[in-house]
């Protein structure tokens, strides 16, 4: 009897602790969303009585920041496990390069409007599928996929540079704005298509948590555990493409967040990959919301692309990560 009671205490404590985490995360989310909704015109005012026009500007921006941050961070958490590399981020599977190529092609051809997010999504998914197809044909395991992702992304970047160089100034400027990554267009791009793509991506990715934990032990160990490495790899890449493609279609190319958030959580809390993906989604969403809100507030009326702010934060974070791992 006494044994039963003492054994159940840690379980109860663990559950209790997790419940506290969930409650704290929910409260923090609500509070931060409320604060973000109050930011505007270079000041903060209670968002309880926003007029229609301001609501139409702020709500889509807040929702977009949350969705984009979540999608990129979940995707980053999965890809870091897949590549067994803490520096992996969604750009490694060609999504950013593909999206940039799609957008620049569309701008150079003179299309725009809804064509831009659609081109970003299509470019992102197509380049990713192309990398998978090349990998299937050439083989090479995880390292092969990593190299192919890197090389094909670099090729896309070269084509983008060539198109921009050949285009007139106008295309160059439009493309540069888009490539910086920004929430400025929130509200113009219909969210429903992106949400469908993100839900699909999450539905594929989250159940793969255990397999990704296995892959973290190395390809050979994963195979010995009965994990179908090829299938898992393919599913993870497709799901990440769906998540990242949807994110870039909403806000352009935003780097670093997909690398930073999962690393931060892995260092602070560790744990299984599924839990890490869920918490990464939450923290990524909140972090992007906070950074975008702060940028909006500080730079008003200039709209600083959030991609630039994240790149500024990403550099020092990378150095910190490097120093920390080299001290181990």
């Amino acid at each position, binding site marked *: 009897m006494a044994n039963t009671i003492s054994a159940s205490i840690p379980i109860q404590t663990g559950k209790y602790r997790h419940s506290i985490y969930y409650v704290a995360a929910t409260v923090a989310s609500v509070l931060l969303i409320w604060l973000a909704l109050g930011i*505007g*015109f270079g000041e903060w005012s209670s968002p309880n009585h926003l007029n*229609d*026009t*301001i609501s*139409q*500007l702020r709500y889509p921006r807040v929702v977009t920041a949350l969705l984009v941050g979540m999608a990129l961070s979940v995707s980053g958490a999965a890809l870091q496990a897949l590549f067994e590399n803490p520096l992996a981020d969604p750009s490694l599977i060609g999504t950013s390069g593909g999206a940039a190529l799609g957008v620049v092609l569309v*701008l150079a051809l*003179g*299309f*725009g*409007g809804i*064509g*831009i997010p659609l081109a970003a999504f299509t470019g992102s998914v197509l380049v990713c599928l192309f990398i998978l197809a090349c990998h299937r044909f050439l083989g090479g395991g995880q390292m092969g996929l990593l190299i192919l992702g890197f090389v094909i992304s670099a090729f896309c970047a070269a084509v983008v540079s060539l198109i921009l*160089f050949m285009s*007139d*100034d*106008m295309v160059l*400027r*439009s493309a540069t*704005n888009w490539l910086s990554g*920004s929430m*400025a267009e929130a*509200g*113009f791009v219909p969210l429903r298509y992106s949400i469908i793509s993100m839900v699909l991506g999450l539905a594929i990715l989250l159940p793969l948590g255990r397999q990704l934990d296995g892959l973290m032990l190395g390809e050979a160990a994963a195979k010995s555990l009965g994990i179908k490495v090829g299938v898992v790899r393919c599913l993870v890449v497709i799901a990440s493409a769906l998540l990242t493609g949807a994110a870039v279609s909403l806000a352009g190319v935003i780097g670093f967040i997909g690398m930073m958030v999962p690393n931060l959580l892995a260092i602070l809390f560790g744990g299984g990959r599924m839990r890490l993906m869920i918490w990464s989604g939450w923290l990524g969403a909140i972090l992007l919301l906070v950074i975008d809100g702060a940028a*909006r507030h500080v*730079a*008003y*009326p*200039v*709209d*600083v*692309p959030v991609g630039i702010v994240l790149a500024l934060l990403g550099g020092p974070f990378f150095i910190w990560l490097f120093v920390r791992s080299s001290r181990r």
Partner: protein
Amino acid sequence: MSSELSKTVITHSVINKKLMSRAISTAAIIGAFAVPSLSAQAYERIVAMSPDVADVVVALGATNKLVGKDATNTNPALKNVPAVGMHRNITAESVLAVKPDLVLGSYMVQPASVYQRLTGLKVKAVNVAPKEEVNTFASSIKSIGSYVDKKAEGSQLAKRWNAGMSPMAKTGKRYLLSYDGRIVAGKGTVGDELIRRAGGINAANVSGLKPMSREGWLAAKPDVIIIADHNQAVVGGVSQFSKRPEVAASAAGKNAGVHFWPADDFLRYGLNSPQVLKKLNAVAK
């Protein structure tokens, strides 16, 4: 002692060499960018490295002297003139290929060092408009006139252009000149100067060409919004753009004050800038 002396001599010699080389570079820069000393020599093979300069050459009736233009130039009079590269990334080699005796350009030409490079290669290269200013553009018309042997025509054209750029009566209307519905022409830009001369108020509360937040657009309360016409498809045309909450709430959105104009009309000075001023003034009425 002698070694210290030799060290001192060497140090001085190095400093002198540095000063000399700095002086040479400064002279080269001054030569390339200062208002040029006009030459009486008649030039017959001229390259116009930027579209603003080419347009003036055409307007002065010296098209037959042009043997090269930049690839972005769309002036129909220069249809048969070969392109020597793009003004924002031009190389001396491609310019030299058409064997010019004079190369003209403005601040638009990049890299700016191409002027020095051409001068170093014994080809006269002149930046006739080193700054993006009203007065500089007017004086560049005169300079070009002298170089193409149309001094009187150049002076007349510059005078007409200057007269056309005279400030107009104040309308009190608020303008936003935007590149793409997001980036606006703030203080210190060509657009800012054009708005003021057209009698209006620049509603963009930023400096330079900067992306302005949508709430910034809302706070700007523009009466007139002008966007570069090549971005019409990107922003969805007048009807779609006017539906944006921050535009719909403004006088521009309510009173059909959204227009699409060629970007060159308000992003740089050109021979048609006086007409642009009139148009700007007229749309406020």
